[in-house]
């Protein structure tokens, strides 16, 4: 169950992770990526793209269908709407399953998997789901897990078809936010906190431009990314500073682009990983945050403490510290909150209030501070998986034009927001 948090490492004081270095990621597959599903091409539907990603991950790992005994996915695909009331298609596209999410049962049936012992279709979004997968393999619930995360974007203006946004009523907890125009999701509260950040440290929205431009650059160095495939040009500073305002000061270029795609990963035991096609990338720890602020809007101080606590949990469970992280891929879905991760984990010594100065320095992949070498979701499209796949590629040494020139032996990746997330510490070595 999504509500089951017992497996999470979301508290301080848990010590070294009991499966540290005993679980490895051995495969990754990224499907084709489009802005939206056209509603016609079944290979490019959620189910079609999931099959593509899963088969690519298997090929990457050098594993066969029979090697898989665990299936893990999330239904939190950010579709924001159901396919219904539009008519369904012939099987296997005759329900929402395969159109707005892809369950374990669906993939088991469509790929003809025969040895499945562990099925989980209601994992949380990809950040904590990656931790869940590592824990499931470590705990022996399965030996080799196929783990996938689709992002679904159907026709229509994003978010405008969400039923809550079209209702004259504000039920439940939304009664205390919706009547004043608060929108669900990460945009509003994190923009409020960004304003608190600027007020506290004397910064401004313009300070995000360097981050945005570098993310787009990294995204264009990612062959499968949305921008490399569909809009292959670099943004200029003028573009950013004159970007269409969504909620002032947030502009369109601060927002990751919703896309239609799927990524898949394969987790297995360190023992099984030894003789596979790829050099194993070991999991040293996973950690999660899940909380809320005291009042209507969480505050900067609350989010700073949340990330500081996340960092303490990550150091405690992995045995590493701030100086040991080579590759750092935290979430950038809205550029307004990314600085909390950079400062809270003190990556490359960045302290509270210093992130914008760091962005203005050299954060290119070939430079000495290759922050978000993935290009993030801002630079590749809102896959969320790019944070993990780039981390894998950097440690494998297969990141191509994005390969960093600094040491790449450990990587820290995760999403989503400072107060609600799951992170994974990866390493080339198991100890």
């Amino acid at each position: 169950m999504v509500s089951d948090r017992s497996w999470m490492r979301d508290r301080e004081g848990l010590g070294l992770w009991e499966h540290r270095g005993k679980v490895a990621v051995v495969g990754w597959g990224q499907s084709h990526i489009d802005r939206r599903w056209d509603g016609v091409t079944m290979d490019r539907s959620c189910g079609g793209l999931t099959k593509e990603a899963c088969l690519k991950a298997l090929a990457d790992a050098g594993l066969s269908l029979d090697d898989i005994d665990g299936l893990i996915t999330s239904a939190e695909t950010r579709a924001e709407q159901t396919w219904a009331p539009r008519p369904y298609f012939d099987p296997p596209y005759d329900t929402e399953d395969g159109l707005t999410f892809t369950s374990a049962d669906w993939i088991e049936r469509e790929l003809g998997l025969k040895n499945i012992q562990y099925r989980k279709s209601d994992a949380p979004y990809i950040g904590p789901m990656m931790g869940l997968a590592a824990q499931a393999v470590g705990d022996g619930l399965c030996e080799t897990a196929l783990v996938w995360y689709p992002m679904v974007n159907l026709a229509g203006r994003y978010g405008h078809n969400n039923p809550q946004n079209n209702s004259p009523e504000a039920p439940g907890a939304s009664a205390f936010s919706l009547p004043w125009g608060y929108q669900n999701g990460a945009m509003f509260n994190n923009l409020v906190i960004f304003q608190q950040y600027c007020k506290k440290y004397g910064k401004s929205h313009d300070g995000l431009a360097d981050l945005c431009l570098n993310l787009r650059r990294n995204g264009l160095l990612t062959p499968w990314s949305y921008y490399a495939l569909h809009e292959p040009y670099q943004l200029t500073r003028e573009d950013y500073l004159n970007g269409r305002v969504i909620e002032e000061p947030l502009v369109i270029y601060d927002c990751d682009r919703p896309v239609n795609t799927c990524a898949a990963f394969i987790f297995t035991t360190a023992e099984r990983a030894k003789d596979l096609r790829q050099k194993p990338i070991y999991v040293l720890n996973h950690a999660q945050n899940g909380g809320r602020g005291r009042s209507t809007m969480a505050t900067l101080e609350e989010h700073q403490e949340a990330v500081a606590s996340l960092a303490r949990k990550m150091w405690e469970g992995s045995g590493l510290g701030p100086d040991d992280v080579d590759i750092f891929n935290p979430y950038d879905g809205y550029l307004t909150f990314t600085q909390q991760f950079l400062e809270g984990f003190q990556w490359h010594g960045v302290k509270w209030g210093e992130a914008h100065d760091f962005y203005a320095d050299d954060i290119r992949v070939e430079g000495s501070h290759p922050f978000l070498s993935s290009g993030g979701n801002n630079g590749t499209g809102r896959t969320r998986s790019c944070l993990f796949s780039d981390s894998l590629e950097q440690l494998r040494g297969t990141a191509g034009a994005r390969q960093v020139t600094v040491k790449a032996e450990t990587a820290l990746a995760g999403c989503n927001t400072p107060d609600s997330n799951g992170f994974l510490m990866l390493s080339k070595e198991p100890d």
Partner: protein
Amino acid sequence: MSTIPGLERPAPVPSDLTQPFWDACNERRLVLQNCTNCQRLQYPPTQRCDQCGSGDNLEWKEVEGKGHIDVYMVIRDSRIRGFRAAQPINFAVITLDEDPGINFLSNLPGTPPGEVPVGAQVELIFEETSTGQLVHEWQGAA
């Protein structure tokens, strides 16, 4: 309706937990949960005290209705239907003077969009939603 032209606020739907809060709003009073064990205000309402975890010591306590503008943004492209005709519209965070750890949302009726005096004092008012239910709002102190 709202005094902000074009604004149609979604109407709060009271629950068993929040009915006393919304009833008080209709009497133009702002009441917050107060844990008598912790002497701590709580808003929005929840079943238990965030601090001691007990639901047994929560009472409704009327507060004075004075606050300050912490930060703001301006909604220019809302996904919420009732806000689109009112754009651009302020979206501010108000801290309560009696306990600045408590904050509220406000569209700051009477303050032109984007011309928000951060740090200024505000006072409690009430505005009508589509069902006639009143909601608490804040405007610049005279």
